[in-house]
């Protein structure tokens, strides 16, 4: 369809004009195409930051048109400016600021549901004269047999009205012209808006909105039953207790399969790129502390973060697509039945699911949860979900635990995921009865119309979230990697006699080249082991070992726990270094399996392996997650609680497992 002619948006005065700078706030109900409109206006020039004084993300962008430069702020979607929700509070504060600065307000409404959307318009009109109304979704209105008279709406409201179908980019040029014109009229000729009285009661606003809508909306034909019946049939299926759950499992299974499948190649490419970069530094820099810092600390730290970027981006890309279709609102009801029993809202399923890939985006996506108590409970328990960073640790420990019974390893693997999820749900229940008392808010949701998702929106969302991840987590991970590198690299330890002898033997003229290479490798491993044992990290391992002795851990395992505090996956590489193992997986497993304590016993007895496995399922062991928790919860105390609680639960569970197995004679 073509949108109706633009109303009241004629071009401004021609010719060169003085530059005009303006701030515009984009406001509207959820599900009105606000994000699509923002992306059309600002495109790739958008960036994400927090609302001042809050932890809610704000997208800002710039629209340049001739002499006019407009900073566009994408406000959170709200139904009513006066609702007591974090989003409404943000919009209220922003609107108060906008009134004082005489900013432009662009309000977007759904033309197919005008009387409801005009309530918010009425609230805004009461306080703002510099306002443009985007009459969006005219195609949906047409399909529902409704015609909206935009000219009559201009007459009634006294503000520019731009008819649009934002999903197809129709009307966007008219909107840009309207913005330019309003910018030129700064300080003068905007007509007085005609809205309801300021501070009108909701009933008065509703009556006003209904009266305006009645004057401008005309029914052209009776709505067809087929569209409604399709929606209702699909709703019944997707929210059905059994079938809806089956669809949910299929959709989420597909999502995660796609996620790992799509992310695999870019992750390998990133890995290879950083390995190449590291090799370049090794080649051009002389051996020494600077080179080690660059390769092991800086490049290693950046690589450790960036390698997860494809997963984060694809996850948000796929979630954005799902959200656009209207499915997520239905899925929230399917999960609400289950999650509500544990004090979690139905909205929590996306964050908890996302946390299986990585706790960072999982916690970031709790912004979908409207209630603060519900949001905090979800943030606190999300890291219990077994993330992809735990997988290498699970692989190593289950292989050690079931060395003689490989068929049992996958069972234990699945058990780890279930243990993590069980701990999350039980902890949510505990928090709901103690520090975050109360029940999850009963679910009330608008069910948006089913629609084809926007690839452009999904790409821009993925880009924003990816950048946000890099900014928040990347800096923390890199800093910690540098610190950990320093702890394990200093003080320098003299190479052990055995390593010196091996190198000497390798240099001897009679030695075959292949044998010489193997000897040098073995010497390097022995030197690494000696370095780890004598480094600050090794000292710390010895120092904290008594704390972990009741769990069956020696100083090497304790050092592994310590170094993996920054990121769990570091545990495997620390163990490999301490074992003096090779780089490949088989070499690591062989080396780790033969690790010995100072008294000659194996480091990884069945009881110790089981205890360590349980510890890693339940422990926090991820400093970037704590940083994100602090940011999303708005307080350091929630990060501290999360760390203390998860570490306590992990320690206790690992203690029970080790002591029970030892008492049963399994050691």
């Amino acid at each position, binding site marked *: 369809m073509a949108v109706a002619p633009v109303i009241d948006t004629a071009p401004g005065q021609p010719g060169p004009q003085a530059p005009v700078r303006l701030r515009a706030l984009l406001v509207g109900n959820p599900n009105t195409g606000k994000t699509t409109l923002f992306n059309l206006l600002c495109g790739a020039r958008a960036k994400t930051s927090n609302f001042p004084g809050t932890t809610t993300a704000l997208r800002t962008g710039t629209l340049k048109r001739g002499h006019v430069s407009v900073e566009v702020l994408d406000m959170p979607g709200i*139904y*009513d400016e*006066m*609702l*007591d*929700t974090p989003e409404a509070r943000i919009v209220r504060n922003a609107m108060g600021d906008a009134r004082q600065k005489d900013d432009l307000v662009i309000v977007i409404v*759904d033309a*197919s*549901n005008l*009387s*409801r959307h005009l*309530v918010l318009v009425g609230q805004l009109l009461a306080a703002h004269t510099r306002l443009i109304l985007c009459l969006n979704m005219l195609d949906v209105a047409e399909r*529902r047999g409704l015609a909206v008279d935009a000219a009559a709406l201009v007459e009634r409201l006294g503000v520019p009205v731009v008819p649009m179908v934002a999903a197809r980019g129709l009307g966007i040029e008219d909107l840009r012209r309207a913005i330019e014109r309003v910018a030129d009229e700064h300080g003068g000729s905007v007509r007085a808006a005609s809205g309801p009285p300021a501070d009108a009661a*909701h*009933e008065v606003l*509703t*009556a006003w909105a*209904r009266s305006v809508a009645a004057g401008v909306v005309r029914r052209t034909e009776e709505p067809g039953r087929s569209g409604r019946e399709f*929606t*209702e049939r699909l*709703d*019944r299926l997707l*929210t059905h*207790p059994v079938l809806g759950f089956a669809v949910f499992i299929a959709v989420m299974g597909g999502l995660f399969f796609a996620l790992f499948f799509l992310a695999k190649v870019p992750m390998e490419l990133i890995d290879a790129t950083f390995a190449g970069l590291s090799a370049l530094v090794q080649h051009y820099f002389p051996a020494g502390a600077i080179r080690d810092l660059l390769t092991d600390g800086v490049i290693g730290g950046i690589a450790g973060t960036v390698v997860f970027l494809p997963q984060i981006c694809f996850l948000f890309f796929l979630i954005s697509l799902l959200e656009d279709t209207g499915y997520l*609102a*239905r899925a929230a*009801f399917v999960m*609400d*039945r289950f999650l*509500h029993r544990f004090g979690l809202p*139905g909205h929590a399923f996306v964050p908890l699911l996302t946390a299986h890939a990585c706790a960072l985006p999982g916690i970031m996506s709790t912004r979908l949860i409207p*209630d603060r108590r519900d949001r905090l409970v979800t943030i606190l328990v999300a890291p219990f979900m077994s993330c992809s960073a735990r997988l290498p640790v699970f692989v190593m420990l289950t292989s050690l635990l079931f060395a003689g019974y490989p068929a049992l390893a996958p069972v234990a693997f699945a058990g780890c995921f279930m243990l993590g999820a069980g701990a999350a749900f039980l902890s949510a229940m505990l928090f709901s009865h103690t520090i975050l008392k109360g029940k999850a*808010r*009963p*679910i*009330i*949701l*608008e*069910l*948006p*119309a089913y629609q084809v998702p926007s690839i452009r929106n999904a790409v821009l969302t993925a880009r924003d979230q990816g950048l946000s991840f890099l900014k928040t987590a990347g800096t923390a991970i890199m800093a910690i990697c540098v610190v950990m590198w320093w702890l394990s690299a200093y003080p320098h330890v003299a190479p052990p006699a055995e390593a010196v002898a091996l190198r000497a033997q390798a240099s001897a003229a009679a030695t075959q080249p292949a044998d010489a290479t193997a000897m040098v490798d073995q010497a390097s491993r022995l030197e690494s082991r000696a370095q780890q044992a004598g480094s600050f990290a090794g000292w710390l391992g010895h120092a904290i070992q008594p704390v972990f002795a009741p769990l069956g851990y020696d100083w090497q395992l304790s050092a592994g726990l310590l170094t993996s505090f920054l990121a769990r996956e570091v545990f495997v590489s620390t163990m490999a270094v301490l074992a003096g193992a090779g780089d490949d997986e088989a070499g690591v497993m062989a080396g780790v399996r033969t690790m010995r304590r100072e008294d000659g016993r194996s480091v990884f007895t069945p009881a110790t392996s089981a205890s360590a496995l349980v510890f890693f399922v339940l422990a926090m062991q991820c400093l970037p997650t704590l940083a994100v928790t602090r940011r999303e919860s708005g307080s350091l105390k929630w990060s501290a609680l999360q760390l203390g609680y998860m570490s306590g639960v992990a320690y206790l569970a690992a203690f029970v497992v080790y002591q029970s197995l030892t008492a049963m004679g399994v050691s």
Partner: protein
Amino acid sequence: MSHVRTQPIALSALGAGRTGRLHEARLDAQSVGLLRALGLSGAEEFRLCKAGEPCILQVGGTRIGVSRTVASQIFVIPDPPSA
């Protein structure tokens, strides 16, 4: 058709396909405000699209889903069933 005003009943007790108007929502202020902002009020007729868990209502151009717990605390005045 004569308009017979019936007694308020819980939304959870209403059958699918029936229409009615809101009488009272015995919920917290935030939930009441949200329902009102979504258009559910005494002045607006709704149609119950799906009963049970969840309960799905159509109010004007808006579809609202509420859990059964919420539906049991929303009291409505049903329109008389059409012949």
